[in-house]
């Protein structure tokens, strides 16, 4: 079992590295916050018309832009537990009409135990302005009063008076600002959804017939429902979401203080947040579910007692169904490619053992069941506990963490290698029977049960939707029992075989076929690994895949070395140590790939290039590719550093990046111009000479960059 120490060590290192990498990223974000004295006003307002000319009868947008001091926030229309939204008051000339202030999609601003909804940074509100059919001559002047509350730890009410003048001077077009602002507004798709209240939860099934939502299940995505009315939900409570069908999204949120039947219909935003696309929302009109409304009104009339009773019988009925589903689901899990091989191995071992001792067989069956129940129980308790603290999780939440995906993929891979016969730890196939009849066999079965739970998790997420969804909106005791029944379903087939001798007789006689079968079973396991790596690719992009595959190759290499050598001999010791160091080194280097910056600067095209060069500002061109390690290292050590960014900012350098990861004719042409046929290529075009208006000769930088080389560009 010397192998075990190595294994633990390596796994520990991998996880430790991942955690460190995340930590350092977080620190980098924090650094940019400058500490300084507060300003006179914590928010600045600019009033920007869509265009400065308005015609009779025309409607234009007016943007009210609020630039908020770092870390401070202003409020959404529904400000949450405290606060007040920004108000805009217009003094309108005769005949003009102004629309309601439109609020963009807010963020959640938590100040435990309170939660607010609002904005940080720059926020742009929109209002429509409609001119009358008969327009006054000459410039039109609007007086606008804006008042708002801006808070961070403390709250300050601020206000200002502004003037907007239209139809004066040259036409100025600000369509771009308006378009940007519109993109941050909730989308109106005319969605209507029925809501009801059950067990202190607001529940609604939204028909999310929109490409933005379809197929989002299992993606790293955050969904939320934010009513524009107060007291509908508990502010800051985490939504429980799952897709009941492809486009039927169920959202459940903890209820707020206000009585719902009195409220009737209200507006809400369905928030969708993904890492790639950021935060957006669709407007949903929430209407009371007719059946629920009728029954709750009838209940209110008939008194609370009767209501409680009818509610209870309903719950217990669906509880039975859910438990049955859970049991069935557990049974089906046994056939999943990630679980089936493990069950089969247990059954095979039973074939051998059953001949020897019936009581031992029973013991293994119970131990295996116990392992599974403990595993499911532990996960259920963790989920329930986290949910109590308001965390945003559901079944399968473990799989949202790439490190856990990686861990499960590795375990499965090792199990697969073992089944393939790539390595054996000790003892052969033949003497297994005898060693089984000791206590270790029992604890072994227990751990097999635990393992089954862990490897089963990737398979549960898509399959157990109904039972899990039900369980997660129930009180803890019910949720726990659903999970345990599910576990029991998973354990049931093996338990049955181990305790009923008649079933054992059905099992085929042991023989050489078992080895072949075992080797075959490795393939579904490998298939599961492939799937997990694909999931990893979705979560982390290509960098994560690089890391995972490097680790897999490294593990294989170490196992191979350990199969060929022994600690006891000096040569073996040296080779083993070197091997392990080499593998860890590779993994660490690959790990850097995960933190490689994914820059999103302007991408090279001949048109952008020419327009940049035609301008006056200095231009820095970086030709790079994802597969070019030198490029990535250069970017990491020299280009994407704060110092370099500051230098670029100070000299107003325009940065242009060309990505040659995929074939790109324009970039190839550019490279040829400089006599290159590969990346990296760094070219700096200095600023125009003030007298001649000419740019100096472009500077071609070396292929290995240092911060010093870049700084030198600006020395002269």
């Amino acid at each position, binding site marked *: 079992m010397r192998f075990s120490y190595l*294994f633990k060590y390596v796994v520990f290192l991998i996880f430790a590295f991942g955690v460190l990498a995340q930590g350092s990223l977080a620190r980098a974000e924090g650094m940019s916050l400058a500490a300084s004295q507060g300003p006179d006003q914590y928010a600045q307002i600019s009033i920007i018309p869509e265009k400065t000319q308005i015609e009779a009868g025309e409607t234009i947008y007016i943007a009210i832009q609020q630039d908020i001091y770092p870390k401070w926030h202003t409020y959404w229309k529904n400000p949450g537990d405290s606060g007040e939204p920004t108000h805009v008051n217009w003094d309108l000339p005769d005949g003009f009409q102004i629309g309601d202030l439109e609020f963009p999609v807010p963020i959640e601003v938590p*100040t435990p*135990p*309170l939660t607010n909804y609002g904005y940080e940074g720059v926020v742009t509100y929109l209002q429509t302005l409609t001119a009358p059919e008969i327009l006054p001559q000459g410039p039109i002047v609007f007086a606008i009063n804006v008042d708002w509350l801006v808070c961070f730890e403390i709250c300050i*009410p601020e206000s200002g008076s502004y003037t907007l003048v239209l139809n004066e001077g040259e036409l100025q077009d600000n369509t771009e600002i308006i378009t940007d602002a519109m993109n941050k507004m909730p989308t109106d798709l005319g969605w209507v959804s029925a809501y009801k209240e059950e067990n202190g939860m607001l529940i609604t099934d939204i028909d999310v017939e929109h490409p933005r939502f379809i197929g989002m299940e299992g993606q790293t995505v955050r969904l939320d429902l934010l009513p524009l009315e107060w007291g509908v939900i508990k502010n*800051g409570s985490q939504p429980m979401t799952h897709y009941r069908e492809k486009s039927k999204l169920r959202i459940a949120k903890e209820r707020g203080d206000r009585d719902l039947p009195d409220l009737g219909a209200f507006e809400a935003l369905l928030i969708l947040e993904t890492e790639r696309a950021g935060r957006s929302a669709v407007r949903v009109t929430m209407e009371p579910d007719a059946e629920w409304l009728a029954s709750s009104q009838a209940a209110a009339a008939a008194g609370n007692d009767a209501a409680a009773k009818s509610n209870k019988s309903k719950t217990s009925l669906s509880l039975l169904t859910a438990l049955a589903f859970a049991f069935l689901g557990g049974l089906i899990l046994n056939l999943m490619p990630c679980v089936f091989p493990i069950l089969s191995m247990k059954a095979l071992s039973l074939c051998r053992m059953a001949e020897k001792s019936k009581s031992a067989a029973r013991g293994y069956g119970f131990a295996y069941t116990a392992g599974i129940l403990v595993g499911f129980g532990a996960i259920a308790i963790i989920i329930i506990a986290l949910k109590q603290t308001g965390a945003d999780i559901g079944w399968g939440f473990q799989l949202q963490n790439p490190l*856990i995906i990686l861990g499960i993929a590795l375990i499965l891979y090792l199990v697969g290698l*073992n089944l393939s016969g790539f390595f054996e730890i*000790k003892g052969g196939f033949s003497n297994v029977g005898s060693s089984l009849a000791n206590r270790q066999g029992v604890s072994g079965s227990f751990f*097999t049960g635990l393992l089954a739970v862990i490897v089963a998790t990737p398979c549960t997420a898509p399959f157990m939707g109904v039972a899990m969804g039900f369980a997660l909106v129930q009180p803890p005791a019910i949720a726990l029992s659903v999970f345990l029944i599910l576990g029991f379903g998973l354990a049931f087939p093996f338990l049955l075989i181990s305790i009923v001798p008649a079933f054992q007789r059905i099992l085929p006689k042991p023989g050489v076929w078992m080895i072949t079968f075992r080797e075959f079973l490795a393939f579904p396991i490998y298939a599961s690994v492939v799937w997990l790596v694909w999931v990893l690719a979705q979560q982390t992009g290509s960098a994560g895949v690089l890391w995972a595959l490097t680790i897999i190759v490294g593990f294989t290499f170490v196992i191979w070395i350990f199969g060929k050598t022994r600690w006891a001999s000096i040569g073996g010791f040296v080779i083993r140590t070197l091997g392990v160091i080499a593998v860890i080194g590779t993994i660490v280097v690959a790990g850097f790939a995960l933190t490689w910056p994914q820059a999103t600067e302007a991408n090279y095209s001949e048109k952008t290039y020419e327009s940049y060069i035609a301008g006056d500002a200095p231009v820095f061109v970086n030709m790079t590719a994802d597969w070019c390690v030198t490029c990535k290292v250069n970017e990491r050590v020299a280009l994407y550093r704060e110092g370099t960014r500051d230098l670029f900012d100070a000299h107003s350098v325009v940065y242009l990046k060309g990505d040659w990861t995929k074939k790109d004719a324009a970039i190839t042409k550019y490279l040829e111009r400089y006599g290159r046929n590969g990346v990296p290529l760094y070219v700096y075009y200095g600023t125009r000479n003030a007298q001649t208006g000419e740019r100096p000769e472009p500077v071609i930088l070396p292929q290995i960059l240092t911060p010093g080389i870049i700084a030198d560009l600006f020395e002269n």
Partner: protein
Amino acid sequence: MTKNITGLLRLSLLPLFVFAMAGFLVGFAAQGHAESDYGVKTGEAAPNFTLQGHDGESYSLDAYKGQIVVLEWTNNECPYVKKFYEEGDMQAVQKEATEDGVVWFTVLSSAKDKQGYMDAEAATLLIQEQGSHETARLLDPSGEVGKLYNAKTTPHMFVINPEGTLVYQGAIDSIPRVKHEDIAKADNYVEAALAAIAQGTKIENATTKPYGCGVKYGS
């Protein structure tokens, strides 16, 4: 063969579980203050509490059964509190109520390093300075009572009837704005609730959305 697998399993399970547990612990820590289901529903019994007042006395809600009790969460530096104190509006409501035998507690749940925190001495001075008419200003720097009642804003008002039932919670009045001029235009929900109890009629707006600054709880 089983041994091969189970041996391997055990090795691989251990670090995974340790990691998972560590992750959850970090998660818990990040959550910070674990939130639980505090708060009282209108129509339910108001939970008892005992707090020290500005005068050094100890005040328990239970001791005031048979009387109407008003709880007013406050923080004298909050603009919304200033709205009601700078021109004497809140003082007037307090005066009228306490003269009618209502027990009026102002409650201070600002944590020690947060805006509005005061010790007994400072609270006494403030009462003199602003001429307020509360029965006592209760000091709740731990935020315990604030969270028990789920007090969210300053001001946030609670009215408890002589039977000890919470009959009103929410805003002081109907216009959730910071400007003083709005007070005259607004309906005062607390006055309405007190009048309804006196007349034995139903309280029209028994739960409203409180407005103002967030209560400055400690973290």
